[in-house]
């Protein structure tokens, strides 16, 4: 017994080292089930406040480009209104073109206060939270296209997976043929993502448009994702390996819109009934 105590005392540094490493690895594994790490991410009050006040400084440098973008978006929206004279637009809700296909979306404008592109799993922190109506599983888009999806919400901030995150992929389709497949990022280049699940018989060409499919309740159908950059036909496989050039420039994100599908619950309830 005494020998054991002496051994423990002599090697306490090694044992403490082992303990802390085991703790770290447990954290790495458990972060996957992200419900458990509710407060240990950058949308918690302290970290988000720091990011928020710091991004206020950096924002002045991007004012010019944000202005240009807003002006362009305004012009697009105005032409959209001209197409849809019968839809009433209230100040807080813009009914998207998707109204025609019988589904209703609301958009919440948010500022990106932290964003990374070079990690293996990239996240976006936004300055809107539960008190503004943001909930997990809502899509994030900007005027160029799909940005990501919300996973965590605190009172006034939220955290989302960006498209550049290996743990999440959008449901995409080729605009021309309507063939759909999952979009996934491989962790290397922030400009490209991969589209899989498109069989060889589908005709496609470099430059084809890739948009969101209608099979997910996260995004409206037809939101821009990117364009086909390169096409490979791996031997012995039935599916193309398609590299998609993303429409959104993730290095220069400033303002985004969070998409709320107002009929999501109804849709979920219906689907659940079929499953049971």
């Amino acid at each position, binding site marked *: 017994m005494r020998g054991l105590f002496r051994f423990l005392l002599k090697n*306490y*540094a*090694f044992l*403490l*080292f082992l303990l*802390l*490493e085991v*703790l*770290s*690895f*447990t*954290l*790495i*594994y*458990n*972060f996957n089930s992200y419900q458990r*790490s509710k407060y*240990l*991410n*950058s949308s*918690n009050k302290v*970290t988000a406040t*720091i*990011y928020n006040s*710091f991004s206020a400084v950096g924002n002045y440098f991007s004012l010019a480009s944000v202005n240009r973008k807003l002006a362009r978006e305004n012009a697009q929206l105005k032409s959209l209104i001209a197409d849809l004279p019968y839809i009433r637009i209230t100040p807080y809700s813009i009914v998207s073109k998707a109204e025609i296909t019988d589904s209703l979306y609301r958009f919440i404008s948010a500022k990106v206060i932290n964003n*990374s*592109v*070079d*990690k*293996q*799993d990239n*996240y976006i922190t936004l300055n809107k939270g539960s008190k503004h109506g943001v909930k997990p599983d809502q899509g994030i888009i900007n005027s160029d296209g799909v940005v990501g999806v919300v996973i965590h919400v605190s009172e006034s901030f939220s*955290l989302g997976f960006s498209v550049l995150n290996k743990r999440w992929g959008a449901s995409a389709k080729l605009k021309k043929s309507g063939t759909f497949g999952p979009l996934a990022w491989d*962790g*290397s*280049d*922030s400009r490209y993502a991969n589209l899989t699940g498109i069989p060889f018989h589908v005709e496609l060409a470099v430059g084809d448009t890739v948009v969101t499919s209608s099979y997910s309740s996260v995004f409206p159908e037809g939101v821009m994702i990117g364009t086909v950059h390169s096409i490979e036909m791996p031997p012995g496989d039935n599916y193309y390996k398609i590299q998609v050039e993303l429409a959104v420039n993730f*290095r220069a994100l400033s303002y985004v819109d969070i998409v709320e599908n107002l009929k999501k619950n109804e849709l979920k309830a219906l689907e659940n009934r079929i499953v049971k």
Partner: protein
Amino acid sequence: MIRILLKYALMFVSLVLVQVLIFNQVQFGGFFNPYVYILFVILLPLSTPRYLVLVLAFVLGFIIDIFSNSLGVHSAATVFIAYMRPLVIRIISNREDDKSDYPGLHQNKLIWFVSYVAFMVLLHHLLLFYLEVYTFANFLTTLFRVILSSLFSIIVIVLSQFLVFRD
């Protein structure tokens, strides 16, 4: 004693802020990800009890993890170099030299400090980047990222010694 505690507390906070607000935002094609916050572990006095070095390293890594949404990755890498620190120092030191307790650039020879920093940064970045990717696929790409980022971190850390935390 109070002065030393205050100094290290200040160093801790400023390194965390500089890391998450400035260096985490440096984005050059995914190959340069400098991590300079480990300067805190590097500059702890050599006489600091080992348990304290380990615990402080864990807390530091944990806070960086929360900011970067990578729970556990930075903690694991930082605790690892905290444990390896006495070994690294033994390897690069001559027995005849009497060393100062503070392992800064001005208290030691330039070559000693640079090799000390280089060892620590390389060990840290190796573990960190492979844990982050969590696979040995693309082994060489990750190794390339480790080497470029390490070079960047080493240069920043050595240069910082001419400006702050000199003694």
